């Protein structure tokens, strides 16, 4: 296996982006990524496009976005892993370079979710499990899948609605310092706790918004990095992928995600690192309970101690392990296919000490970061460790 580096990243503004179509939105992320890498787009050998799709008009979004970005002629594939589609695209580009198939690839994540009404979006994400057994007769929704984990976590470990709200308050605080975030405002604990229930025990402020957005990363082999004279490559130190059952009813428990534990284990082993080595992390906080479970599944704390980390402020800048200092999915927004690529964008910027704004730059010693991107409710998980 060859070493692979990220040499350029870009992200569009996340939010309700009805000012652009899917191709234009993708261009907003690809342009800065290609310029950051200092490459000619015509020299890209492989393009991988992560998108879940279904809520916008294009049925072959990979070819539409590739044509628009001037990648015609490159190898191309669409990667689907629900909310982890962006990481699936990153994984595909990484493996193609590591295996020696290509030297230069672009991984894109994009989603356009605001072209249909909210009940339709809720319907489409609700079907993202096992339609036949959990949606057809029972109308499961994405908040409901995570709400079931919150109920179980609260019953087993005494986690409270206030613990969940603290995650929302933290992530809104950082999103307010991120010009690319969907929500750029802080919220109070009272506002979070008094918001209306969506799927009990989860309330409005426990949920990520429905967002449009795109992100992109340029990946290169070590030879290519040298040839291009890249000054600050960020290396992929480890990457792991695992899947869970489609039926939620087939999970062994509802207090964590097995796919996340397995993916993290694979990534840590490849990187020869452990959770204690991680200095900044982006974790999949589509719902507040998901961030608390991520702390535990990634080994940032023991099982059941996730609420303690958030209560003590250990996951804020200045704490033991700053998490989601870009606002997370919760407040930066969650255009589902874009999220994995947006995590890579944020972490590469953090590792190069280029966080925007500077107020949310994490102080680093060893320059090691981790991205944890879940598809569905632990249906898929990708964990990626980056190192400068």
């Amino acid at each position, binding site marked *: 296996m060859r070493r692979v580096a990220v040499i350029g990243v870009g992200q569009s503004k996340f939010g309700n982006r009805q000012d652009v179509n899917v191709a234009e939105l993708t261009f907003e992320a690809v342009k800065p990524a290609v310029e950051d890498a200092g490459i000619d787009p015509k020299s890209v050998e492989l393009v991988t496009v992560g998108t879940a799709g279904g809520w916008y008009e294009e049925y072959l979004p990979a070819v539409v976005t590739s044509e628009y970005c001037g990648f015609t002629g490159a190898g191309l594939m669409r990667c689907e892993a629900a909310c982890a589609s962006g990481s699936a695209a990153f994984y595909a580009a990484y493996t193609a370079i590591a295996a020696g198939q290509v030297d230069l690839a672009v991984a894109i994540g994009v989603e356009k979710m605001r072209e249909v009404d909210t*009940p339709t979006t809720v319907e489409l994400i609700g079907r993202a499990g096992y339609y036949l057994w959990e949606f057809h007769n029972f109308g499961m929704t994405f908040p409901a899948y995570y709400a079931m984990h919150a109920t179980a976590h609260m019953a087993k470990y005494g986690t409270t609605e206030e613990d969940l709200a603290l995650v929302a308050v933290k992530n809104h605080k950082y999103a307010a310092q991120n010009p690319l975030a969907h929500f750029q405002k802080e919220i109070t604990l009272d506002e979070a706790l008094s918001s209306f229930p969506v799927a009990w025990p989860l309330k409005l402020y426990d949920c990520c918004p429905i967002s449009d957005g795109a992100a992109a990363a340029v990946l290169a082999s070590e030879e290519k990095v040298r040839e291009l004279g890249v000054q600050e490559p960020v290396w992929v130190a480890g990457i792991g992928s695992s899947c869970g059952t489609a039926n939620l009813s087939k999970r062994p428990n509802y207090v964590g995600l097995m796919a996340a534990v397995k993916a993290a284990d694979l990534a840590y082993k490849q990187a020869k690192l452990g959770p204690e080595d991680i200095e900044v992390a982006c974790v999949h906080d589509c719902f507040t309970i998901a961030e608390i479970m991520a702390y535990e599944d990634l080994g940032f704390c023991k099982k059941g101690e996730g609420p303690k980390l958030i209560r003590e402020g250990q996951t804020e800048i200045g704490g033991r392990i700053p998490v989601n200092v870009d606002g997370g999915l919760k407040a930066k927004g969650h255009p589902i296919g874009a999220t994995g690529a947006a995590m890579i964008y944020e972490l590469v910027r953090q590792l190069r000490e280029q966080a925007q704004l500077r107020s949310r730059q994490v102080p680093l010693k060893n320059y090691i970061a981790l991205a944890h991107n879940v598809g569905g409710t632990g249906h898929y998980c990708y964990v990626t460790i980056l190192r400068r």
Partner: protein
Amino acid sequence: MASGYATLKSRPLKLVFDIPISRIEKFWQGLKEGKVLATRCRKCGKMFFPPVADCSECYSQDMEWVELSGEGELETFTHILVRPASFQDEEPYTVAIARMKEGVRVLAWIKDVEPTDLKVGMKVKLKADTTLEGEPTYVFVPAE
């Protein structure tokens, strides 16, 4: 959706799928007779709910039908207020997962109980039922 920006309405597309159920048709027949059925692999003995025609454990295709006792214990639940487009005609509903006496877990609506009275660990009963549209389904109710 309304955003203030210029948009173009796409041509409408309505998709309805004919989902094949012939290999596990007995499950829906069972519901109509008031029974909730699971399948068990005749070769390795693994029990499946939802029922399957093929064993993912040993790859045997020799399965038998087993009626569930209906006795279960609540593992988790949620009360859904924000509902999908195709469930807009329903009142808010509560979905639960219970572990059945036979070892399999089942996800279904729980009825005849206030969501605030539910507790993880409580005993529930699984039974055949009918949807708003008159189609066969299955639900939990409190055991007593």
